[in-house]
């Protein structure tokens, strides 16, 4: 019956995580703001765990249907978000060859 202390705990976590987020994201290079957004989008889709529990517990028809659509929507964000972030980051190359393996004979 200590739901209020659970809420206070949650509030602590929220505020502290917000601070970490602020400090970490402030340091993200503006070069990568687009992939940053698609990555946070994928991570945010962790909401899928709540939807999975709804579907899995099968408490009512409504909760199962809503949960199912939510699982589909969130999963598409996870998969799509990681795929496109990876594609974008692969494209960012430096003009200085990073490793000898990258400097393949460019027949030109």
């Amino acid at each position, binding site marked *: 019956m200590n739901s209020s202390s659970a809420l206070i705990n949650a509030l602590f976590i929220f505020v502290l995580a917000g601070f970490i987020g602020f400090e970490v994201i402030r340091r993200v290079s503006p070069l990568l703001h687009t992939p940053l957004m698609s990555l946070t989008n994928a991570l*945010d889709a962790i909401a899928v*765990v709540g939807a999975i529990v709804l579907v899995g517990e099968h408490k009512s028809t409504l909760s199962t249907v809503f949960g*199912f659509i939510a699982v589909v929507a969130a*999963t598409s*964000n996870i998969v799509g978000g*990681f795929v496109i972030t990876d594609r974008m980051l692969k494209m960012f190359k430096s003009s200085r060859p990073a490793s000898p393996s990258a400097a393949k004979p460019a027949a030109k």
Partner: protein
Amino acid sequence: MTPEPGTLQIVIELLYLIASVLFILSLKWMSSPTTARHGIWAGEIGMVLAIGGTLLNHGMDYRLIATGLVLGTIIGIPLGNVAMTAVPQRTALSHAFGALCVTLVGSAEFYLRTPGISRFMMAVLSLEVILGGLTVTGSLMAAGKLQEVLPQRPLTYKGQNLVNFLLLAGALVIAITLVLHPEDKTLFPLMILIALAFGVLLIIPIGGADMPTVISLLNGYAGLSAAAMGFVLNSKLLIIAGALDGSSGLILSIIMSKAMNRSFTNVLFGAFGQVQTGAAAGEEAKPVRSATPEEAAAILSGANRVIVVPGYGMAVAQAQHKVRELYDALTKRGVDVRFAIHPVAGRMPGHMNVLLAEADIPYDRLIEMDEINGDFPQTDVALVIGANDVTNPAARSDKTSPIFGMPILDVDKAHTVMVIKRSMNPGFAGIDNPLYYLDNNLMLFGDAKAFVGSIVRELGGGHS
């Protein structure tokens, strides 16, 4: 809720803890392009651990869950493989999906728990579905505008702000009523409907130039609604992920609105196109100088330092690959070519960087506004491709200009400025650009892709 957590519950919570740490590391590694790809792996491992941990819960209907996961994957793969030019609308769409998930879970929880729902919980749940609901429709509207399914011009009408305000107030009144009487099942769907309508009306007056700010803001809303969902479900992992996403969206919105010298409220409640519709009509034919591709090529090949300023027009014309050929041709002749990136160039934060990186232009040639602005006076040629407002010197000097105070790229300080533009029509925001009438400015009239292609041919560096 569980009086004595069993071993299984502890294992699941520990998996969530590891996932939280991995999520934070994932974002930390995004600080540099050299480590960014580790960030994806960290995020993916964290995601697998968290989903795997959730599936450990007893008595789950695994068949239905698996169907949902597979269906989501089938939808997600094409969404991850869209063309790079479609990234802004894809991002908006994924904000809508994320918010849809949150809103649906929140609604299901309401109907499962009412009337035995505590007041504080009902307040958080209301916040979750209001933020979620307006993000769903708002993001869909933004995606529609970016995909050009919907008209891109800001639509305004008399009393717009009053209508929006009343709607939001209505949703809040219902939320408060629900907090006091959580058993009222009929009010709940009404609250969601209002939130959905509010999302639509919020984006109607937003023009294309404001999209970077709006997408960031919607990103922040999606994150906050997910964090609220974490409170409702008492899930620490979700609170952390939501807080990270929320702060990311908030920081990006702040950066974007600073780069436009506008406040949040100004972006959301004052359409850009509104103010200067009258001012733009001033049609005095001032003389401009124009140049042919041959002349442009001659000037460029005689330069030592060139700065290219890309804008949304480059993305529309799909000119980034031709720009890369120009970069190659000039670099081969020993010209130092760099790119000046304005924070709000394009339709979302970082849009230009992604397009130029896709065209294989090395990222260390892409320079931020604050870093490169001091170099324009020592630059021989500033080549503006599809950018307009971010180069408008009126933002520095003309107090009557609607964009006065907005930080701009000081291209007018270069020895020669060349602007590739389809015609003299004012840009999206309808603001006249005095840059075009300066003595050191040359207009290169034509389609960005075709014009850059012609310059490359003149330089003899084309792949043809």
